[in-house]
């Protein structure tokens, strides 16, 4: 027992210094899990993107090549898909931020029960599978669906509008799925805002819209930024909504990556596309955060990145 035991104890006491006390060692299982599953998988994806593909599928072990990335940059179809994905993400984010702000503001101002209803609705939506959220819009948006029969029935349009299978349908589905994240992020920030500031502005003669634009919106920027980052980075690489609510011209980089993995078994190319998508999205987000930090109100980007 002697020798190994004391070495164990020495190791433990070293760990204790580092970890505060022995209970700190409880982080080890989850840290090991994240390293093996999360970091391991991402590193393997990165490695996969440097393998040479083979004609009969998957990859050639032991090879290193930059060809997959070179192909991405020169392939005008895939570049078009990337640009489309970014544009889709930007449109969805802009709409969701406006709608989400109004919703969060209403929840913040609403009294007890109505506030619970408003928040409860987005919380329920947050939990629901993306497949269900997207599927729900099919009977609403189809040519003889609910929206069109309302529009035609009221005489607003002469014949049914194409919504399903268009970018409009995809944007509606994505705004719907991103809304809870923006609402909750903005609401969390608004709860720490002092309403008497807004009242003071109004007592001094500011109109309602102006008091909101000049007092509430600047204070809500950390929430708008956090919600906006989520909405952008998720809708840019959306998969389910473009497939079900869009047409082939609404295919995103995620749709293409999925095709490479599951249909053509071109894993190195899928991996390179995934890596490219992450780099582009992170760059856009980083530039946005830097711009808001530079030109926005002070302290809004603290804790991000």
């Amino acid at each position: 027992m002697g020798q190994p035991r004391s070495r164990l104890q020495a190791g433990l006491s070293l760990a204790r210094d580092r970890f505060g006390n022995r209970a700190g060692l409880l982080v080890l299982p989850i840290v090991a899990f994240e390293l093996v599953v999360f970091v391991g998988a991402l590193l393997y994806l990165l490695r996969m993107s440097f393998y040479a593909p083979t004609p009969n599928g998957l990859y050639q072990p032991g090879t290193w090549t930059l060809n997959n990335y070179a192909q991405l940059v020169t392939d005008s179809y895939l570049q078009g898909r990337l640009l489309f994905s970014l544009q889709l993400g930007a449109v969805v984010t802009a709409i969701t931020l406006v709608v989400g702000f109004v919703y969060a503001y209403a929840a913040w101002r609403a009294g007890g029960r109505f506030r619970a209803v408003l928040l409860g609705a987005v919380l329920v939506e947050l939990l629901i599978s993306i497949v269900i959220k997207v599927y729900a819009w099919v009977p609403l948006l189809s040519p003889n669906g609910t929206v069109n029969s309302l529009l035609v029935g009221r005489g607003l349009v002469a014949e049914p509008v194409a919504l399903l299978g268009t970018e409009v349908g995809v944007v509606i589905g994505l705004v719907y799925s991103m809304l809870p994240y923006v609402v909750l992020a903005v609401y969390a920030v608004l709860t720490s805002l002092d309403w008497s500031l807004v009242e003071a502005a109004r007592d001094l003669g500011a109109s309602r819209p102006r008091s909101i634009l000049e007092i509430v919106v600047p204070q809500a920027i950390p929430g708008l930024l956090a919600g906006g980052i989520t909405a952008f980075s998720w809708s840019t690489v959306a998969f389910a909504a473009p497939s079900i609510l869009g047409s082939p011209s609404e295919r995103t980089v995620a749709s293409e990556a999925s095709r490479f993995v599951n249909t053509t078994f071109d894993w190195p190319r899928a991996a390179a596309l995934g890596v490219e998508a992450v780099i582009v999205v992170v760059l856009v987000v980083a530039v946005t955060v830097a711009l808001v930090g530079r030109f926005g109100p002070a302290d809004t980007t603290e804790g991000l990145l």
Partner: protein
Amino acid sequence: MRRRQLGTVLFRASVWLLLGFVVLPIMVVVATSVSATPDVVFPPEQLSLRYYEAFFFEEAKWQAAFGNSMIVAAGTAVLATVLGTAGAYGTWQLAAGRLRNAITTLLVLPLPTPLIVLALALSVYFARLGIRGSYLALILGHTLVTVPFVYIVVRAVLTRVDWQTHEAARDLGATRWQAFRAVVFPQIRAGVVAAGFVAAILSLHEFLIALFLSDFSTQTLPVLEWTALRNFVDPMVSVVSTLLILAALGLAIPVVVVFGVDRLARLL
């Protein structure tokens, strides 16, 4: 004065419209599930429970997917709760500093990572390890995306613990484990169970990772819904979606009881 009233009316109207925007699609799913006809229209023309009957008594593939979903959700809830709770308590006990910051960052990093990238990465990685398509792969994948929520929830619960009771127990001679077991754990138990329910809901409804990691024999309900949708719109999808929504609501009730809607809204 009149302009202001008009503004208020417009604002209220738009809030109700937005609430409708959030709630209506959920109602559509539930309403179309009790349709008597195979075409999915809202509002349904005739009501019947025939597709529920079909789900529970006839369709073997949906029942198999139901079983797969249960296995994966239960496995995920257990693994994520154990890892997340230990991790939250561990980081709570860690001395402040770079190590703690690095660990907390690592633990929440899977959250902002795009799901498609996680799905791609796990798919090729698990294929290499030879476990792609197994329940283990699905449970590990779902644990990866749900454990940050468990961690965040339990961390929030720990801030409400009366730590003086812990000190008192230690002063009276309890070991750390005894103090945790007898004094701290009873104070966080409800929160830990709630966190496990959240993990179970998220796993039941997770789609993209399940799509990439499952095979024909392990596919979960959202994956089978997806496959069904690719062919044609099927009322069975409404039935399964309604059941999944009801399961989420049922599991969410205890969570709301523990935290309250308002606190939960700020937590997630």
